[in-house]
């Protein structure tokens, strides 16, 4: 596939926002002491990430003014379900942000709002991941690890972000709680993502030129794809990066999203580095996760590409 920048930014930013909300909700539920201003600050950052994601998703549409129509087919379409759940989640987080500003409302509604935020965030991860995992003939995506990875990558980036914000706000207890959670989530996300990359590297695709054309021959090659230049089919489904570039991006993604954050977080945990290093980790990991999401799309080989091998 040719990775669409809008979708890469959308899924990465929204995933981090969801992870941050889940981190704040977990902190609320287990009574980690957190100043109301810090809680609201964290929720505000999450809302910004989610709104940036939503705005970015509009850039992917050919007809953004008609986007409201996308709510209608939730019975069959995971994309439609995502389009319903994302604004609902943003509204829920905004409601929590409002309630957190009032001491009485905060006491009464904190636990139910936190529980609801975790549930809706999980639902949103499933919807987003299933958009890709339900396409059975894109074999790089049609596997359970796709769902696991959307959840774990979002959780890891959200927890690292929560740790960075706690360090900036000098919330010592919250930071002490976020740091090990961020470390564990980053290691788990790295392990599952690498497992998916290893699995995908070994895929033998079910569709071949023989099944695509039904022509059974000792040798079969395309001599013309039926057009003299390109078409939607050659633009949308081919990333055009060289194999070397793809390898470099894969290495950079794994290093920046998982390896470097794990090492630095462990050093911070061992108190060899100051807490403020977490802010650098959050930025480095964001870059790594953007590269990784680009790779997620670029790595997927669409069976339609079998029909578009030779321009002439």
């Amino acid at each position: 596939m040719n990775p669409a920048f809008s979708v890469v930014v959308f899924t990465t930013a929204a995933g981090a926002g969801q992870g941050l909300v889940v981190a704040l909700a977990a902190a609320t539920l287990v009574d980690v002491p957190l100043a109301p201003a810090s809680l609201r600050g964290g929720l505000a950052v999450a809302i910004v990430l989610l709104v940036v994601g939503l705005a970015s998703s509009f850039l992917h549409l050919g007809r953004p003014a008609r986007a409201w129509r996308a709510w209608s087919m939730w019975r069959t379409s995971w994309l439609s379900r995502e389009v319903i759940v994302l604004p609902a989640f943003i509204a829920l987080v905004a409601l929590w942000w409002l309630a957190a500003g009032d001491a009485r409302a905060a006491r009464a509604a904190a636990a139910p709002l936190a529980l609801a935020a975790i549930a809706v965030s999980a639902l949103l991860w499933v919807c987003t991941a299933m958009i890709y995992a339900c396409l059975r003939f894109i074999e790089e995506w049609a596997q359970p690890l796709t769902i696991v990875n959307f959840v774990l990558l979002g959780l890891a980036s959200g927890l690292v972000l929560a740790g960075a914000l706690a360090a900036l706000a000098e919330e010592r207890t919250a930071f002490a709680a976020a740091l090990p959670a961020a470390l564990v989530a980053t290691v788990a996300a790295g392990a599952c993502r690498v497992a998916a990359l290893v699995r995908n590297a070994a895929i033998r695709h079910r569709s071949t030129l023989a099944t695509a054309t039904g022509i059974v021959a000792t040798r079969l090659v395309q001599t013309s794809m039926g057009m003299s230049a390109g078409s939607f089919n050659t633009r949308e489904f081919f990333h055009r990066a060289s194999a070397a570039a793809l390898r470099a991006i894969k290495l950079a993604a794994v290093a920046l999203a998982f390896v470097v954050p794990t090492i630095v977080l462990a050093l911070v945990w061992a108190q060899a580095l100051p807490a403020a290093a977490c802010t650098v980790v959050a930025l480095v990991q964001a870059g790594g996760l953007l590269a990784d999401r680009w790779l997620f799309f670029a790595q997927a080989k669409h069976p339609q590409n079998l029909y578009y091998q030779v321009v002439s």
Partner: protein
Amino acid sequence: MIAALRALFGRREDAAAAGDRESPPTRQLALVIDLNVCVGCHACVTSCKEWNTFGAAGPLADENAYGAAPTGTFFNRVQTYEAGVFPATDTVHFPKSCLHCEDPPCVPVCPTGASYKRKSDGIVLVDYDKCIGCKYCAWACPYGARELDEARQVMTKCTLCVDRIEDATLAPADRKPACVKACPTGARIFGDIHDPDSDAARAIRERGGYALMPEWNTRPANHYLPRRITAAAGAAAQETRTLGSGGAARAAPDIG
């Protein structure tokens, strides 16, 4: 967790089975394309473009038409493949358009309902007024049959010329897709494949009609008739789908 994930992925098969239990469309219009007859003239391509760019499905944009890299929206393309090893090679021209699957994967994924399969005749269509141009249906089509129109930014595809085949003002013989009317060799057979007496159903049945990418169970309505190696006039035609494996290939000197 694993069981729940399995259930999510297993849903497809359940849905397909449920689809079988529902009454299938009584009619399923389709094209049957005879690879033995197609000469790769692209008349179907130009006729399709001409009809549809002026019809209900159009206009179909052409961008940079006289530049170095022209691009445009087409519902139908003719590709060419070379099968076999020299000198026993066959050139196979391969017309390619939407296959109007009986279980179309592009339809359920559409978030707006713009993509739909017509119950009355099984044609898969796009409502251009509802399409938001998210391209998800194109991702969900294993055949690459859908093309986003760059000027209108909506998804487009073969309609089997719905605005021709039901036009009562046309002579009955003309109520066929533009590509079928244009084909000089009669390589395109149009009809209801659910009607066992139609030319299309008979061609599939009697001449080994096959579907593309059967591994994904999309059950394409369009079928292809395999290349037949024809012997000298008067001799019986020999049905074969393995090209380039004849005696000539083995007898030929190895020229690397």
